[in-house]
């Protein structure tokens, strides 16, 4: 394999590609077409959790303890099940308070305390430095292997070598330059880095692909699948124990404490906080991450044990460091392309971690460590330089470089004493110290600033004493007697058997004592005094993060300020242009044309503070705003009052909302009822005009004929007789009309009398046919009956049903032509008893088939209006429906019409 030049070119090309992806994603973000607003990208960016520790170190760990590498991934899996509560709450409260780092989070939660923010920053930096050195060690190791093959060992570091001749030093510098380019090109008020997230998500894919490729090659290329590797391992006593048992390297206590440690690290590592909380675009993305991220962890671990066993079998007795198996196995098999891919995968794992971690740490160092000191010493907020945004960027860039150099320093001092995982675990134990203050801060209102300070300090000190110092001692930087005999030969204080506690591995031992000290101090000191006003207010914002719809921070400020000064202040840190735009936007939202005339009320002060919080952290923002605004302190009682007021207001507004919804529903019902009433009113008017019209027609003819009879005595008797007949007929029609109108009105109003008896429908139909027989014979219409033998009895009103039958039969007689044919059928159907009255008249047009059941609408059109009142069918329909049946018509124009009704068997009149 051609060596250094090729490697350098490939590595630089890859870094260039990452940079291009980041640049592209940043551009897209500026165009409001974010590429990272995607749940899968979010889940993949979380996989920055998998660093070279996972990529190279898991195999090394497995070589010592079998499945003992797994708790590091089971812990995060379990914590993701709780992510629905924990992460969501962290995201909500971070967004509501414009929090940009974990130190900012803790400082903000406990009353925007600068001291607390600074302490958290120190812990994060010191704690994570070993982790960064791990990445340097892994990258320089992998480079060394590719350059020095076939002597495939992690190169022993030569302590005598000056740093400028050490390639690791240059790797650190390149990574620093790369990170500066990535993360600090411009200052963002929300501290979000879309380009970085996109690049990290891509790197997650690359490292998974590279590791799986190596795993597939070892499992199926060098050996014959999983079963084959495990079978061969069975033959070797040591490997048999390693592959199939926990007892090989560690006990259940270690297993448990590693699971816990990894779970806490997953939440509180600065880079995990950065990608999971700060860079979260949309909290619904959490849904997919909850299962996709653990799935990623599972996939990247499937091949760890096969690679370990394969390496141990192949390199048995050659002294190859198991941390390098992922790379040395392909190299030993002369798979150059695969080796290169693995190298790129390892580089991905390292750069992803270093970029996100140092950016997160540099934000903390700038906002929570350097800014407070600068503000205190130089009065930066009042005068001096007009635009401080350049200074902020410079501080961050310097911090990135310093952190990487610290990592390199640790690598020189202590890196050789540990395997990769061992170094990483030291960092895990450090960030676990954030757990009491963070989790307590999210769920317990009683935690105070003093409690958090005491807990963090105590935990950090114990961690340093039991893990960090021993790591120096093991490297020979401190005397070895420090470990074996304790400081000043005090045996009880031996750092890895503190107070004589033995039987635990060093990580579990340190975790136990440091968390005891941390949690104990946090709780005890917090309980010494009740929270102050500011603490209580902030506690409310975090503990109730899932309940608050709008931050109540605004209400917790009272005092005087000047809007011009505020804008100038924000401009110093964000740049005057950005500040002007921000204030103009604020003014627009509040309906004010000129930002200069804005009233500097609590709302505006809060706005300015939150703008600054994005750039310099909440604690510093509060301090600089206080320098231009005269705040009147609130007493705890006042704070509680405001908070209560706020919650009461919320309650009232919810109540109001509920009431207004009810009101709206009632209005709807009223509108519907009103429409119905108007419709009924219209129907009544129609009815009245129809009735009067119908009454007037016979009356007119009666009156006309009567007047002729009165005025003209000379009318011949036959003519007089005819007139009298017409008058009598019209009078009868009038009587019928009045009767039927009354009848219909009674039925419709529900006042009709019903005499329900058991009736035989067959007999009733026959009787009706007989009664109308003369009518049919007069018109020479053939009436035929088709009746079954017998039908079950019905409960109904006999006279009313006869009325219906007579109506249907007389209608048929009326509309069928001379010589026509009418058939009456009675049949039993599933629905009930059915009666059809079919004629072969001219039929009813489809558009009329519904109209004829309305009052005064008669079939046959206006020209040849037949005799009748137009009320028969409506009344019949009402009667049938009263007994639960239905009445309808089927007709084909020209082929007759069939009127049918069905009465249910169980019909019972009310």
């Amino acid at each position: 394999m051609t060596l250094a030049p090729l490697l350098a070119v490939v590595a630089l090309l890859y870094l260039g590609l990452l940079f291009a992806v980041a640049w592209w994603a940043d551009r897209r973000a500026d165009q409001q077409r974010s590429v990272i607003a995607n749940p899968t990208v979010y889940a993949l960016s979380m996989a920055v959790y998998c660093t070279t520790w996972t990529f190279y170190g898991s195999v090394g760990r497995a070589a010592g303890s079998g499945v003992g590498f797994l708790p590091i991934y089971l812990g995060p899996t379990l914590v993701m099940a709780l992510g629905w509560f924990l992460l969501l709450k962290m995201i909500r409260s971070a967004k509501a308070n414009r929090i940009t780092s974990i130190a900012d989070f803790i400082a903000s939660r406990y009353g925007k305390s600068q001291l607390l923010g600074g302490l958290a920053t120190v812990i994060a930096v010191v704690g994570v430095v070993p982790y960064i050195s791990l990445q340097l060690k892994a990258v320089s190791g992998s480079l060394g292997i590719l350059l020095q093959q076939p002597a495939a060992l992690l190169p022993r570091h030569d302590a005598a070598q000056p740093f400028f001749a050490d390639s690791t030093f240059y790797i650190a510098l390149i990574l620093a330059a790369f990170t500066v380019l990535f993360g600090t090109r411009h200052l963002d008020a929300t501290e979000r880095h879309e380009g970085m997230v996109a690049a990290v998500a891509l790197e997650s894919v690359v490292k998974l692909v590279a590791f799986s490729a190596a795993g597939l090659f070892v499992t199926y290329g060098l050996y014959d699948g999983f079963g084959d590797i495990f079978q061969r391992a069975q033959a070797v006593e040591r490997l048999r124990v390693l592959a199939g048992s926990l007892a090989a390297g560690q006990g259940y206590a270690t297993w448990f404490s590693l699971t816990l440690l990894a779970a806490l690290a997953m939440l509180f590592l600065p880079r995990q906080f950065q990608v999971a909380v700060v860079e979260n675009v949309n909290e619904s993305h959490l849904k997919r991450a909850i299962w996709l991220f653990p799935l990623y962890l599972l996939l990247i671990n499937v091949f760890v044990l096969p690679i370990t066993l394969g390496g141990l079998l192949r390199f048995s007795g050659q002294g190859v460091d198991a941390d390098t198996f992922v790379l040395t196995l392909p190299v030993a098999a002369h798979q150059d392309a695969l080796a290169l891919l693995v190298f790129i995968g390892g580089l991905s794992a390292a750069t992803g971690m270093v970029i996100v971690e140092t950016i997160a740490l540099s934000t903390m160092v700038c906002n929570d460590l350097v800014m407070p000191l600068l503000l205190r010493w130089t009065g930066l907020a009042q005068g001096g330089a007009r635009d401080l945004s350049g200074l902020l960027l410079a501080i961050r860039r310097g911090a990135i470089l310093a952190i990487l150099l610290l990592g390199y320093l640790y690598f020189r001092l202590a890196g050789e004493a540990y395997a990769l995982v061992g170094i990483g675990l030291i960092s895990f134990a450090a960030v676990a110290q954030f757990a009491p203050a963070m989790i307590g801060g999210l769920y317990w209102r009683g935690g105070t600033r003093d409690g958090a300070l005491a807990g963090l300090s105590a935990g950090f000190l114990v961690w340093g004493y039991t893990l960090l110092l021993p790591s120096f001692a093991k490297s020979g930087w401190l005397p070895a007697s420090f470990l074996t005999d304790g400081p000043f030969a005090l045996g009880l204080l031996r750092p890895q058997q503190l107070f004589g506690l033995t039987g635990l591995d060093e990580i579990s031992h340190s975790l136990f004592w440091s968390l005891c000290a941390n949690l104990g101090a946090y709780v005890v000191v917090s309980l010494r005094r009740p929270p102050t006003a500011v603490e209580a207010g902030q506690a409310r914002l975090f503990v109730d993060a899932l309940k608050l719809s709008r931050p109540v921070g605004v209400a917790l400020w009272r005092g005087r300020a000047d809007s011009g000064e505020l804008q100038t202040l924000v401009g110093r840190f964000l740049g005057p242009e950005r500040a002007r735009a921000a204030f103009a936007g604020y003014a627009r939202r509040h309906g004010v044309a000129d930002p200069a005339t804005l009233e500097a009320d609590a709302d505006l002060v809060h706005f300015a503070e939150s703008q600054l919080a994005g750039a310099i952290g909440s604690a510093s923002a509060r301090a600089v705003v206080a320098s231009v605004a005269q705040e009147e302190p609130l007493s705890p009682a006042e704070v509680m009052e405001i908070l209560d007021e706020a919650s009461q207001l919320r309650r009232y507004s919810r109540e109001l909302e509920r009431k207004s919804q009810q009101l709206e529903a009632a209005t709807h019902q009223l509108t519907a009822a009103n429409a119905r009433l108007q419709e009924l009113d219209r129907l009544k008017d129609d009815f009245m005009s129809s009735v009067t019209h119908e009454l007037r027609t016979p009356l007119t003819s009666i009156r006309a004929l009567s007047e002729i009879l009165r005025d003209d005595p000379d009318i011949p008797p036959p003519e007089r007789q005819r007139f009298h007949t017409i008058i009598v007929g019209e009078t009868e029609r009038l009587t019928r009309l009045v009767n039927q109108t009354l009848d219909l009105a009674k039925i419709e109003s529900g006042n009709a009398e019903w005499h329900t008896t058991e009736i035989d429908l067959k007999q009733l139909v026959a009787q009706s046919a007989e009664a109308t027989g003369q009518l049919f014979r007069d018109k020479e219409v053939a009436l035929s009956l088709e009746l079954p033998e017998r039908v079950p009895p019905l409960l109904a009103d006999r006279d009313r049903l006869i009325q219906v039958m007579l109506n249907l039969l007389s209608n048929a007689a009326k509309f069928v032509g001379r010589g026509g044919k009418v058939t009456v059928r009675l049949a039993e159907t599933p629905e009930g008893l059915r009666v059809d009255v079919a004629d072969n008249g001219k039929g009813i047009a489809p558009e009329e088939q519904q109209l004829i059941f309305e009052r005064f609408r008669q079939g046959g059109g206006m020209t040849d209006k037949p005799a009748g009142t137009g009320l028969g069918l409506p009344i019949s329909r009402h009667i049938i429906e009263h007994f639960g049946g239905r009445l309808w018509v089927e007709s084909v124009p020209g082929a007759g019409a069939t009127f049918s009704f069905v009465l249910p068997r169980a019909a019972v009149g009310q």
Partner: protein
Amino acid sequence: MQGSILRGPRLVALFLAGCLLFNYPVLALFDRPVELFGLPLLFVYLFAAWFGLIALMAWIIERRRD
């Protein structure tokens, strides 16, 4: 973020189940020199239980409604 009101409690139950499955003493039940499909029992158990847990998490979180 709407969803079934049972989603939260279900995930908590899953978390507790996971804590049980991946710790002593349940773990000790599988920590014995027995083979399954030619693979060590502990290895098979850990990955199977892990995968089952993830599948359940996905099911709980992604299902549309009850």
